[in-house]
């Protein structure tokens, strides 16, 4: 069995030193029984799943649980992965987003998916935003977006993925991604402006 333990531990910042091993190669080696490959994949993919989950859920403990479950599914599917079929990161983002949606639905079973975007809901959400003043302003605003808009905005503007990548993850067209991110940004700007007005801040 090949030993990968001589490589730096990616979870502690050294993974850029081993760019020659792709995610797919590492997953294949893990499937062959290499424990070091799992450590490298954890350092490379874990933070990406966690970052998305944290922004989708706005709750650290829940984001950790979702990330652990998403990575567990990665470990289990490793032997069945077909090389070249897709990016592993794309697969992981999709699993993470679906787990986040499942969790939110369980917490709010009456929530409707794809609700119509209100024309101007800034006034109605200010009260709720004051309840979450300990959260950062962006997270409080993200929490108010419809699920699909929030997914698109997080993937585009926080994860910095390309529109085609996001389209692959969300299984929609590139045009739909552009539309969702544009509407999401408009909604965020309105929510943030409403909050600032409510708190009496000056613009600019």
């Amino acid at each position, binding site marked *: 069995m090949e030993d990968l333990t001589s490589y730096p531990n990616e979870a502690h910042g050294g993974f850029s030193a081993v760019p020659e091993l792709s995610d797919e190669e590492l997953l294949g080696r893990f*499937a062959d029984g290499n*424990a070091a490959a799992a450590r490298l994949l*954890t350092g490379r993919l*874990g933070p990406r799943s*966690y970052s998305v989950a944290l922004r989708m859920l706005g709750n650290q403990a829940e984001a950790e649980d979702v*990330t652990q479950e998403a990575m*567990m599914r990665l470990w289990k599917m490793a032997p069945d992965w077909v090389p070249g079929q897709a990016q592993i990161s794309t697969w992981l983002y999709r699993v993470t987003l679906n787990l986040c949606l499942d969790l939110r639905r369980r917490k709010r079973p009456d929530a409707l998916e794809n609700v119509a975007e209100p024309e101007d809901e800034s006034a109605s959400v200010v009260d709720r935003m004051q309840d979450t003043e300990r959260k950062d302003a962006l997270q409080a605003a993200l929490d108010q977006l419809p699920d699909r808009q929030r997914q698109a905005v997080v993937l585009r503007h926080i994860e910095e993925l390309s529109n085609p990548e996001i389209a692959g993850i969300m299984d929609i067209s590139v045009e739909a991604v552009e539309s969702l991110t544009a509407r999401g940004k408009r909604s965020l700007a309105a929510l*943030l*402006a409403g909050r600032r007005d409510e708190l009496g801040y000056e613009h600019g």
Partner: protein
Amino acid sequence: MNWGTNMADHDKELEHLFAQARDARDVFPDNLAVRIETDAEAVRLARSAHKRRRTWRDRMNVIGGWHGVSGLVAASAAGIWIGFSAPAFLPDPADYFVSQDATYLVADLNLDENYLEDAE
């Protein structure tokens, strides 16, 4: 709120918040990394054990799986039993070696009876 005049400011503020969020991506809880790696090791060990079981199963399949193995064991046991305890209607080859009369053997040597007495 005047959207027409403040839109550029809103965009700028939003971009600033996105940048802050991107910086926060580097924060990955150590305990979460440990939990994930523990899961990976459990899956790896379980898969390794499964592979070992499958290897034995593959070997058994060569001789017909569990049915083949049990048949082979039964046949072997029967052979050993017959070897030690042959049915009455079968000649027992072992008799030729262990149940011959000693006197008969000595007689076969065609020796004089006095020879034995002299030897004592």
